[in-house]
């Protein structure tokens, strides 16, 4: 398994299809590249480009469709396709979300949170076990953005993630934008939420932008703009607490030029350095 060696190059970036050709031509100085595994499961340009980029950069495979929280179980065909891609690309990280993207057979193309109950914990743990068994490695599980709150939850997100990591050996992908969006939407304190995340289990940090609706009462996790200063402040706190954890800037919608995305990755690191000084 590959590891992240060029950490000094700062954060990685989420690389999406419209940026791939420019990225291949520019070969920018980033410590790693994260792609959505589902975009590269077929052949042709997308697969070939990933193989090419892999020659010079560590790759993180970020899955969007394993649907860890689905009651119908893990889609074995999909899991095997991810395994085949992982065997070929040898990523240093593989991750997905603590959510449901497949609802009773229908792929919702979203990360719908699950209720933080003992039943859901048992279900998610069983699915993570199966995924890790198939992939032959520990995966990372990302906290989703919350707009909804289930009635009758039995634990908070930090406790759920801590127990899940302890039970399965998985690590946590801490998305600070998602923590911020969720906290604001549910009337909680983002820094207090972050403090509940299990420091020893964090394997990656994500930063992204969000939209504001309803005069600031509702935040939407849009990944279509730079991160706001509140999210960068949360990132600086996370970066200080989760020492030596790779971090990444994600931009998925209304994509700007590649230079802008690279600039955002640099900006988040500069913000952290301004607050806490150079590592």
């Amino acid at each position, binding site marked *: 398994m590959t590891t992240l060696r060029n950490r000094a190059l700062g954060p990685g970036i989420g690389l999406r299809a419209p940026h791939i050709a420019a990225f291949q031509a520019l070969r920018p100085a980033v410590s790693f590249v994260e792609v959505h595994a*589902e*975009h590269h*499961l*077929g*052949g*042709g*340009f*997308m*697969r*070939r480009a990933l193989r090419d980029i892999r020659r010079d950069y560590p790759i993180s495979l970020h899955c*969007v*469709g*394993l*649907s860890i929280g*689905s*009651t*119908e179980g893990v*889609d074995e065909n*999909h899991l095997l396709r991810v395994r085949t891609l992982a065997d070929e690309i040898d990523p240093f990280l593989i991750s997905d979300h603590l959510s*449901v*993207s*497949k*609802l*009773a*057979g*229908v*792929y*919702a*193309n*979203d990360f*719908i949170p*699950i*209720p933080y*109950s003992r*039943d*859901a914990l048992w*279900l998610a743990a069983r699915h993570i076990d199966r995924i890790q068994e198939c992939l032959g490695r520990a995966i990372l599980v990302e906290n989703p953005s919350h*707009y*909804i*709150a*289930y*009635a*009758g939850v039995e634990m908070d997100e930090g406790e759920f993630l801590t127990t899940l990591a302890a039970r399965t050996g998985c690590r946590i992908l801490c998305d600070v934008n998602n923590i911020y969006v969720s906290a604001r*939407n*549910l009337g909680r304190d983002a820094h207090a939420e972050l403090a509940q995340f299990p420091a020893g289990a964090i394997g990656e940090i994500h930063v992204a932008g969000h939209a504001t609706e309803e005069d600031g009462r*509702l935040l*939407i996790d849009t990944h279509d703009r730079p991160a706001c200063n509140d999210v960068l402040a949360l990132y600086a706190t996370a970066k200080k607490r989760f020492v030596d954890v790779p971090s990444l800037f994600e931009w998925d919608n209304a994509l700007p030029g590649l230079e802008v995305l690279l600039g955002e990755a640099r900006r988040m690191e500069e913000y952290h350095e301004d607050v806490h000084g150079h590592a």
Partner: protein
Amino acid sequence: MVTLSEIQTRMRDAILAREEEPLDDILGPTAKRFEIHRRHFISSVSAALEKTFPAVVSLIDRRFFGYVADSFIRSKPPLSPCLSEYGAELPGFLAGFPACANRPYLADVARLEWAIHAAYHAADSSIGHESIFDPSVHHFSSRFPVHQIWNVALGRAEGPVDLSAGPSHLMIHRRGNDVSVEILSETEFRFHRALVECGDIALVAHAASELYPGFDIGATIGRLRKRNVLTQPLALGGDAI
């Protein structure tokens, strides 16, 4: 107490429903905000379809495509986590969609666009793929001059198109990073299809020589080899052609 399975089934029904479904017993005062997930489902899947079917979007305009896509998604929602594999059923849906009945060619334009999309994403390897043709190769025939309609819709050719100028016979395949759409003669198309279905070059060549006396089999296979769309050297009478 509502089980996890019941929650997910009700959420599925809610994202597929045209009207808001009450989820108050599950989500309490935040139930209204499930609308964000409902909205995202239709808008993001519809956006994926728009990318796959740009000529269809152009022919019926974007707003109307939004209406068609909304109906399609609710009737045949995605089942796979790879959205690039979603949309194969849109052509058939368009063929039976009453509001598109005045554009009888629309379903065939969608078939062409799906073939282009599928060719672009097709697997590289031919492992487990027994066809004579590369996995990216699709054959497609229409009673309309669909290739012309597609080019005009994408602004690559001038209209108007004479709809009676069909039929058209096409081979779609990946070439480098692009997808190539090639017009075949009807005989060449039938020969290709026979190769797909039979797989025995000697049998197909023998039948073609009897059925189409003027058909140049050697030249046809030569073109296929030049296009690099074959998975095996085709041998006729013991010699590779």
